[in-house]
């Protein structure tokens, strides 16, 4: 049987608030295959970002396991686990944050090249990615010289340039105006569909969520 792209089983995560343990989610399981997209919806603070962080190894669940491609993670914070996660993020998992996805000292093109290089991809088509996202003429500009929408397009270019199997996007349009946001998400879905990678999108925008093939509502506030 061909393993799915991403499988998470029985994930539990608690925070401590004062002396009270606060449960972010309990026994959460999900599965995602190539070409599929999953919308994580819920209010602010419902644990969307935490879940994304767990799915790319930036945070550890209290219990449960995560499998990405054929790498299985069942807890453990040893150096080897770290290295396996790092390797996955480097080559297979593209992450897009709400903002500040670019190195400020590098031009847009150099940012894309850096990301492609880290992923072991050819740097030659980096300019093409910028052009496909409609910001080819801004390639030599620095992040602080372009608009927020242009920055997020460049962030998408970086992600696609690494040719990932999985894209994790945490409110990628949260800081953009509606029109620009639609534009950017349009490109995101378009490219995801064309390249057949998986996409997990954390958003509080219900409309945006409907464009995904699956939904997971974390809408409740964390339980005490």
């Amino acid at each position: 049987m061909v393993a799915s792209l991403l499988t998470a089983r029985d994930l539990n995560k608690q925070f401590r608030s004062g002396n009270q343990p606060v449960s972010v989610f309990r026994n959460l399981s999900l599965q995602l295959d190539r070409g599929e997209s999953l919308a994580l919806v819920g209010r602010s603070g419902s644990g969307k970002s935490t879940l994304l962080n767990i799915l790319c190894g930036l945070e550890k669940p209290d219990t449960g396991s995560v499998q990405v491609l054929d790498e299985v993670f069942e807890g453990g914070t040893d150096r080897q686990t770290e290295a396996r996660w790092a390797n996955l993020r480097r080559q297979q998992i593209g992450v897009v944050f709400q903002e500040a996805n670019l190195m400020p000292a590098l031009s847009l093109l150099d940012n894309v090249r850096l990301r492609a290089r880290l992923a072991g991809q050819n740097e030659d088509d980096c300019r093409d990615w910028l052009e496909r996202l409609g910001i080819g003429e801004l390639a030599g500009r620095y992040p602080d010289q372009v608009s927020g929408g242009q920055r997020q397009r460049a962030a998408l270019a970086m992600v696609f340039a690494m040719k990932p199997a999985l894209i994790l996007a945490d409110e990628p349009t949260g800081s953009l105006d509606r029109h620009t946001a639609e534009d950017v998400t349009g490109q995101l879905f378009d490219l995801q569909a064309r390249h057949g990678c998986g996409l997990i999108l954390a958003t509080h925008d219900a409309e945006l969520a409907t464009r995904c093939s699956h939904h997971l509502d974390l809408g409740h506030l964390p339980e005490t």
Partner: protein
Amino acid sequence: MTVCSALLSHYRRHPLQLLALALMIVLATMLWTGVSHLTDHARASLAQSEQAIAGQQQLVREDGQAVSVQDFAYLRRQGLCVMPWLEVQRPPPEGRVIGVDPFASACFGSDAPGQARVDALNGEPFLDIAEAKAMVRQGSNGDLSLLVPVDVEADAVPADYRLKDFSMGPATGELGESFLLNLDALGVLVLLITALLVRSVYQLGLVQRRESFTLLRRFGVPATRVQVLLLIEMVALTSVWVIPGIWLGRLLAEILGGGFGQVLESLFDAPLYAVDGGGFVLPALVMVTVVLLACFADKRLLRRLPWLSGRPSVVWFGVPVLGLGLAMVAWPFTLGWLFVGIALVFVAVGLLTPRVLSYVAQWGAEGAGAITLWQRRELAVLFRRLALPVVALQFAVAMVLAIQALVTTFEDTFERWLGQRLEAEFYVEVPEQSAAVDGVRYLAGLSGVGDWHLVQRGKTHVVPEMAGDDAATSVEVDLFSISPIGPLVTGWTLLDAIPDAWEKLATGQGVMVNEQLARRQGYQPGETIGFTLGEQSLALPVVGVYADYGRPDGEILVAGQILPETFNTRFQSLSLNPGTLAMAEIEQGLAAVWNTDQLTVRDNGSIRSLASGVFDQTFLITRAITVLTLVLAGTSLLIMGWVFFTTRAWYYRLLFVWGLSPREVAGQLRWLAMFLTGAVAVAALPLGVWLTWALVSRINPLAFGWSLPMAVYPGFWLEMLVLCLVIGLAISVLMRRQLGAGVPAPAMANVAGGGER
């Protein structure tokens, strides 16, 4: 909530920042106060000691006998102003004291040697001569001299007595002055470094409070109001924190001053006077002014000089200023001119260094791989953003390099100077009425004695260019003869010589001249020098030029054998190493052949070790101060670097998100931080070497008329580099802990800076 409390609320949330600012003000104040305090005291004490030893003369008996209280009474009854000076050497820790008679010194007026006023008779080092004499009676060595004012002429001296120069040990006056100048320069540099550090902390605070300022502006608070409030805040902060700074500085000065005082005391017989308390106002005012200038001067200055604020204009401004400064130092007219030149160079270097380093960091990076490019670009950002602490550290390192080179050069020069003057273990003065030749014969027949020679001193005239017998054009110089020429002199440093110079000197085929005479009259080895010896005129080739380490008079060295009988020898002594014999035995033998019981014997070994010890201690203090400055500058870069890195934490975290392992991220940070501080050390090197050169080859000749040899110490450069790298390493270690502390929120990148490129 008022605007004021809104501003201050920042520190409630970030108490560490307030602490960092306070710490910087306290440390900077402490350092500056300490250094300036020491300098002031050194100046006062040296001024007194200068007076104590400046150009005194003494009366000695024509018959060579030691002077006594009877001589004193006799000379006073002849109407001469004479004061007794009984120098008593006691074994450590008591050391040397000087017995004087305050009644007798009254006729010297304010020029009394050592300001031997009654209120100074506290044993440091002056005390009443009766007490000093009692020490001598209890077994200490005592040496009585009779001093007369400098204006006493030879014809006023009664028969059976003559005038003689009076100096107390090595003439260290100029070295002392030089040392002071050195401290002065240090004080100014410390102030400069202080200003840079305070400014860097202040600017950092501004960056971190940008959010608050933006909010306040949105709420309609005018920008000028915010400015005024910030000004008040800084004045209040500084006023509060300079107090412990000054207090700590005093403490520092006291601690160092203990050793320093001993140095001055043993060097110049000048006690380091107690700290003249009070006086918090002046240092406090200076520090508040420096802090305000450092923080706010640019607001006004840049408005007036808009061309200074733009990035390219810094280069346009900096390069000509650098050129002008370098030219002023290369061709100095006066000491003031020279100092202005040095200041200009420092200003220009301060402006240019961050730009240049930033440029160099990126240079050639375009073709490099993406990661290298990121490293280089990030480094360039760091150089620009951390410009002030970077420049402060650069100045501090340059200063430490220069001071170290200067101090080592001084030490080395002094060592060689001592070596030349005190080559033999003992000096025995030939008594006035005795024939030197008897002593020479005695030593020549003595088996077991070590190396020895006879030194005869007198005056001669050199006739430049052999211009006939025209006495008006002849120059009086000291003549200095040695026989036999042996190992005690052949080890001297010759600045220039023809081959077999010592042999030619020994056989009377040539003379040597000292550096001073060679410079003044332009003599070079091989040239013929015309001079008189008593009745006869001689013309002999110069076979060598020997170093004189600052001796102000011209001097000719000849072999004793060419000295005619008629030559008027003013002073004769035997320099000797006792070899396998006991010195007491040789002394007895010489006293017997000269038929005297009053031999003047100087133990050079003890003088040498005393002098060396004293200088070691002096230089140790200079070093301690420079190292403190370095530590302060290093700490500042550490704090600034750490805080700045923290504002960029999100971006370093991105590397982690992008798949670099924590270890790899830490490696990148380490590379950045160590390259940053290492580059500072490298940038400081030319400045330090240049500063050394300016000190020894420009300031010293202008101030004292003689130059020190310029030396460089690459071993020490390496030490500085390693120190800077350690600072970089410390930054990266702190940073790594910071990154490991949790997931930083990306939002912070926008509101609190860190997004600079």
